[in-house]
């Protein structure tokens, strides 16, 4: 038992280091790609091709002054960025990112835990992520921040419903909530082929959940001067930044796992397939950010409640009917 626990602790530590590195380089890649799309050059001064830029950024952030606004609720102000980052990192615990590999004679499963309620766990973590943003907005003692926080909570609660319904239709087809089983259910046919509509609904909601363009209203610079994290600086701000990119990686990894066959693929090892698919999604996120303009808040709410929710419900009924008809 104790060896198992040791193995899990090592896996968690390694995964966190990998994820933090991935986040840092996601930011770098995003800046480079967006620069190309906008006919700029992007960061290319620090190290070859600017590859050391993330390191320089992190150092700069660490040495910045850590401000706490007057009248801020101290404990909550401190808690909010930590909550945001922790829920982002914790969500990754159930995602299978590769097949079992042999490492120094020990069989290592490439996931932290394949629990029987894996999908619900992911959902729970994403619903807890609201707290980081709401509390940041409230504790900053700043009207713009509060507005950003309230907007974000309304947005995230609204888009959680169609997101959940889209995922339920996949669960119906796979017959399990465990992410490992869902990956195995796609050995012959990916769920993106079986249920394209579920994927479209899931992905739109996922963008809204991560507060990314074109749904980045909670931090709309032009109207809310960065919204909930206006007052944050230094490492606390860095944690919010980390949380946002972590959320992008998590929803992308979830999409890969649930709709694109997870780590499965021919010839190459499982984890490499997972990385390739994940990179595709991260590129897509960047592409959207450089292309699409931001929605208005009423448009966003109308899209969520009047289009996506009925569509997701209809999609669920149709798929439930099909699963029942095929005797699944």
């Amino acid at each position: 038992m104790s060896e198992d626990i040791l193995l899990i602790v090592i896996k968690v530590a390694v995964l966190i280091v990998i994820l933090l590195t991935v986040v840092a380089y996601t930011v770098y890649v995003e800046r480079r790609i967006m620069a190309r799309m906008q006919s700029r050059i992007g960061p290319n001064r620090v190290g070859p091709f600017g590859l050391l830029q993330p390191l320089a950024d992190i150092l700069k952030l660490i040495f910045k002054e850590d401000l706490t606004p007057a009248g801020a609720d101290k404990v909550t102000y401190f808690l909010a960025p930590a909550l945001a980052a922790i829920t982002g990192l914790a969500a990754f615990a159930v995602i299978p990112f590769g097949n079992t590999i042999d490492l120094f004679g020990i069989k290592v499963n490439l996931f932290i835990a394949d629990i029987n309620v894996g999908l619900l766990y992911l959902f729970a973590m994403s619903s807890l992520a609201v707290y980081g943003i709401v509390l940041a907005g409230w504790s900053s003692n700043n009207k713009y921040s509060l507005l950003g926080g309230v907007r974000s909570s309304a947005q995230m609660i609204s888009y959680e419903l169609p997101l959940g319904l889209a995922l339920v239709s996949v669960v119906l087809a796979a017959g399990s909530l465990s992410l490992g089983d869902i990956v195995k259910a796609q050995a012959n046919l990916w769920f993106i082929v079986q249920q394209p509509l579920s994927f479209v609904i899931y992905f739109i909601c996922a963008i809204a959940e991560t507060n990314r363009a074109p749904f980045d209203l909670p931090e709309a610079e032009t109207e809310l001067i960065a919204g909930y994290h206006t007052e944050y600086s230094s490492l606390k701000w860095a944690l919010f930044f980390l949380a946002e990119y972590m959320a992008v990686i998590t929803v992308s990894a979830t999409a890969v796992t649930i709709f694109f066959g997870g780590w499965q693929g021919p010839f190459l090892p499982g984890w490499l397939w997972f990385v390739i698919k994940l990179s595709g999604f991260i590129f897509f996120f960047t592409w959207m950010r450089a292309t699409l303009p931001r929605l208005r808040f009423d448009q966003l709410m109308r899209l969520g409640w009047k289009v996506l929710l009925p569509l997701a419900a209809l999609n669920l009924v149709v798929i439930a009917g099909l699963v029942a008809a095929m005797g699944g």
Partner: protein
Amino acid sequence: MPDLSNLPYEQAIFYLVSALAVGCALAMILSKNAVHAALFMVANFGLVAVLYLLLRASFIATIQVIVYAGAIMVLFLFVIMMLNVQEADPRSSRGPQDRLFTLGSLAPLLGLGLLGALAYVALGVKQPAATSGGLVFANIQDVGALLFTRYLYPFEITSLLLLVAMIGAVVLAKRR
């Protein structure tokens, strides 16, 4: 699924989490700030979810986090922030003319009485023999099957209740 009939440090986890949950509940009813009260409540729900996990009810544990912590308490926070709720120290009183004054000062006494009665019943419960070999993880399939067979009518009525609640909330929101 590994065999989890005996978790390591189960006792220590149980007593630690229980103590924290009780502490959070106390902090919640005594805190001056409504937002802090809501946060202690969230912590309490999370800790009770851990107790559910110790009782091998993984489905209910995640549902608890999603519905209570993720939806209900966010709604509470939302309303507290929107109305900017402020309250004086709950322990202070407005004097005898306050109608709740007598009730408020009697509350700890009534609470002790209630706790005594409940604790007497709780400690008198015999350990069932069915689980002498340890607890087992409940299957989600079993919960679902029970929900759609024996408890089908309650389930349907609950859906009706949710519909009524939804319409009610919309009507109330529109009236202003």
